[in-house]
């Protein structure tokens, strides 16, 4: 089930591009504020909350993936974004989600995988 389309930042060079710490999607802060994270808004609840956006996203990411066909793409599968919206994703995102999100994930028995490439299994 594809989640449709995330908004694509128009200015790829823009310094303020931010990547979601949980799903690694890259959007402008404005998009995060307007629409939240297209994949994990339910957990992150960034929509309209700039503070929350600051906490749940980061500019510290490396590598940009244009996920055009998430369902079929191996890259998306490898990045575990194949169930997510189409859009721009980061290869690596530095940092961890806020503790409340981590706790929530735990309560749902979802394994949290930081996107900083530190976990390999």
């Amino acid at each position: 089930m594809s989640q449709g389309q995330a908004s694509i930042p128009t200015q790829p060079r823009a310094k303020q591009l931010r990547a979601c710490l949980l799903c690694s999607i890259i959007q402008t802060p404005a998009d995060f504020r307007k629409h939240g994270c297209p994949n994990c808004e339910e957990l992150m609840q960034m929509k309209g909350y700039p503070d929350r956006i600051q906490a749940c996203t980061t500019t510290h990411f490396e590598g940009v993936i244009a996920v055009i066909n998430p369902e079929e793409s191996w890259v998306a599968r490898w990045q575990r974004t194949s169930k997510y919206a189409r859009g721009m994703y980061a290869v690596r995102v530095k940092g961890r989600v806020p503790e409340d999100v981590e706790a929530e994930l735990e309560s749902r028995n979802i394994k949290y995988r930081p996107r900083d490439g530190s976990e390999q299994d």
Partner: protein
Amino acid sequence: MSDVEDEAFMDNEEAGEEHEELEEERPKKKHSRRHEDEDEEEDDEEEDDEEDEDEDEDEDEGEQRGKKRAKHRHKRPAVNRFLDVEAEVDEDEDEEEDEDEYARDEFIADTGLEGEDDYDMVRRAADHARYDRRVREMDDRDLEQVAEDISQRYRRTAVRYTGDMSDVPQRLLMPSVHDANLWQVRVRPGKERDIVFSLMRKAIDLEFSNRPLNILSAFQRDSLPGMIYVEARSAKQVSEAINGLVGVFPSRGINLVPIEEMASLLQIKQQELTVTPGSWVRIKRGKYQGDLAQVMDVTENGEEVGLKFIPRIDLNPKDDVGLDGRKRKKAGAGLSSFNMRPPQRFFNYEEVVKVYGRKSVSKRNQVYVFQNDTYKDGFIEKDFRLTALQLDDVNPTLDEITRFTRGQDGTENETNVDLSIIAEASRKAAISVLQPGDHVEVFEGEQSGVHGTVHSIEGDVVTMEPVGVEFDGQRIQIPARSVRKRFKPGDHVKVMTGKNADETGLVVSVIDNVVTFLSDMTMQEANLREAAEVGTGTNIVGNYELHDLVQIDQQTVGVIFKTERDSFRVLDQNGQVRLVQPHQITMRRDSNRAIATDSEGHELRIGDNVKEVDGEGRKGRVLHTHQSFFAFLHNRDYAENGGVFVTRARSLASLAPKGNIMKLGNTDLSKMNPALSGGAGGMVGSGNIGRGPRDRLIGVSVMVIKGPSKGYVGTIKDTNGPHARVELLTGNKVITIDKEKLRRRNPDGSLEPLEKSFTSMGPPRSGGFGSQTPNPYSQGGRTPGWGQTGRTPNPYNDSRTPAWTASSRTPNPYADHGKTPAWDATARTPNPYNQGGKTPAWNTSARTPNPYANGGGSSTWGGATPGRGVNWDAAPTPFAAFTPGAAPTPAPFSMQTPFEYQTPAGGAYPQTPGVMAGAYGSQESQYEAPSKWLLEPEFSQKRGLVVEVRGTFGGGWHGGDFEGKQGVVLSVFDTHNESFESVARVRFFNPVDPLQPILPVPVQFLWPVHPEHREETVVILDGAQKGVEARVEAVESNNSMVVTTMDTFHVIDTSPDRLIRIHDIDEVGNRR
């Protein structure tokens, strides 16, 4: 209002895709919306209530904000399908009202603007029809269904995060063959991210076109500049996708990424650089570029760090604002100019105030604020983005750290010193200096005093193998900072840091931790406080070394006399000292082959100790010569230029005493003959005696005998292996040609093989005796005898026969003495001569690289030496020099050596070098009479054959007394039996015992004596005319004779080897 109506209305809103926008425009509602979302995730089933609530709100808002919405819709006529412009009557009054109420303003607005547009009206009518249909459908569905729809719709905006992919281990996600491939595409560096974004946008744009992009994804990694990776099923899809994008270079190939490398592309991880408070960083850009800074704190997301570092405040602003407060701000701006970066200096309130005025600095608590920067304790404290900092390879120097530890007043503040900082700095320094294998000692801690070699270094722990009885093979681990290099007197060291940095020298003494060394450069003793400052010295920078001769430019060469950290000091041939970077050096020159002569005409060689005969009379050792003119000398006694100086080669004289031979005016011949002069010390002091001569072929006049240039005459200019470059006399042309195709051309026009002597020349040269083998050609060129030989075969020969001459093909010194011991030896013993003498293989053996490898050869050789010496004193006979090549069998030599002294002919022989040379020329005729040739029927019946006794050495016949004697055969007695010797009765010309001139001689010791003069009667030894008597008509050259057979008057052109003299004798052997 009924639920159904509400739902319908609600749906209308949704259908118009207005819902979201409305929400956005009403900030007030955000919280409620948020609340709604939360409700949903808690309980999706209770949608209906929420919808009511939501709807009510919508309604209210609708009334309140009618105008705004009207404006909004005004731009979008499509939404007018909500409006019943035709005032259609519906049975549901409430809804009607609602609708009207809701859309009244719009209606008015719309009519005002669009009323006149008929087309619009028609379209709007269609919209209405569609709307009606939908409303009716809606009515038909049951409520539950509707509720489901709604909940579905809402779920879409806030999907429950399941993390359903998280449980799969990464390794199970590895790509398989069924996955699309990754394709590497080259792009303009720096544009990778843009292109990935462009691809995304392009994919979206073309998604519903008739040519959608078929790529699945595209990505870029910062660590892989200049390339992006596109995931697609085929390269064609990739090229279609990237077609038209700027900055993509499909021409450079769309390369498939192997499936096993796909994952690693996404796994690449930059070196994780963590910044912790207290660590050192360097500032990458700006005024403080390269400055060391200490991290104070790090922001939570790790993007910014607070740094503390030494400020660079311009205390001499350009536009002097000292007293004029108006320009202060400009002064601040002027600071940003990197060109005039002010020096690092601690913030000093008084100084700054003096320059910038009191107002510019404000003080809050302990902190000064100046130009928006905060200064504390003299340091500036400033936040930097992590990207503006260099985190790795910071390598703070001790100087920098000590500066940090100083107070703002600049005085050493001992209490302020953070020992751990120093420790870290010294630790790094220590590690960088140490290498496995270094000899170190422990100078602190429990193991203090232990010394040994470094086995390995891990981090800052050094594993060393101590030396000493008590540590038998143990290894101990020591912190790197606790060990230091150990030096002992005599070590050659180079100072790494400090006042004497880069100096090299010899360690004179080591007392505690002070190393005293004698500098190579200044010859001054210097003390080094810390042994750690000293590294084991090399004088090598780059590829160049101290005292190398280097080419600086086309005209200039020089000798490196001092190496510095990354440059050299070079003394060029003009005596100028230059500071040269390694890259400025074109090449290192090898002057080993350079030739120069000193003031006395002696060759000047590298390593010779010489002194100037004029000028300052300096002494020195020759380092290099250049262009036969300049000599670079070195003498440690001169402090200037590291003891290197340059002078003219012509003004030098050897310090070593010259041998008398040189003084006797023995001129070229002996001088050119190292074998002669070597022992006499002609080249005393030369470290390079074994140097091979230049190719003697150079300058030789030759004629081409094969190929397109056949017949041309020229001069050899250069040789290279089997090729020679020949300058032709005609056309002034230089051609490269096989040496095989060349013949030496003598002054008289006769031709000779070019390299005939080199076959036997080779071994002694390569065997290290090169200097003892004078080249026959060079000698030949100087001795008149050589050139004449070809024309006048053996004018001196009376005691010997042409046959003997031929034997000189075997380069045997003993042949020089008019006797033929080697020949007889060959006949009798299966030694190398035997084989070689008869077959061309002989030459091969002569070429064996090291004949001296044979055991005992050297002693034999020594035995032979006096003989040669005697020879050469009388006249240089070059062929004697070939002996080494032929000396593989020691035994015959040792026997022969005394013999040659016994033979009276020996003394006379040296007169005939020419013959030898001539004989040498006959090398090509390879005929040798077979052993026991005399028994062949053609000869056994002949009387008067002139023979010579050879090979009787070593317990042979009569103990060799008759060796070399010649005589005539009277009769041959063939036993036809191996066990009984066949003998011939020979009457000797000069019998040992005059009373017994006729003796039976075993036939194997008898060898033919070849003719040398015309008019001699001969018997042909070989060929069709074998056994036929003939007469020598003419002697063409030393290896060619024309004979006429006696009976048939056949004229035969043959070589003397194939002939034997025959005398017409009477019964007792007297010549008639």
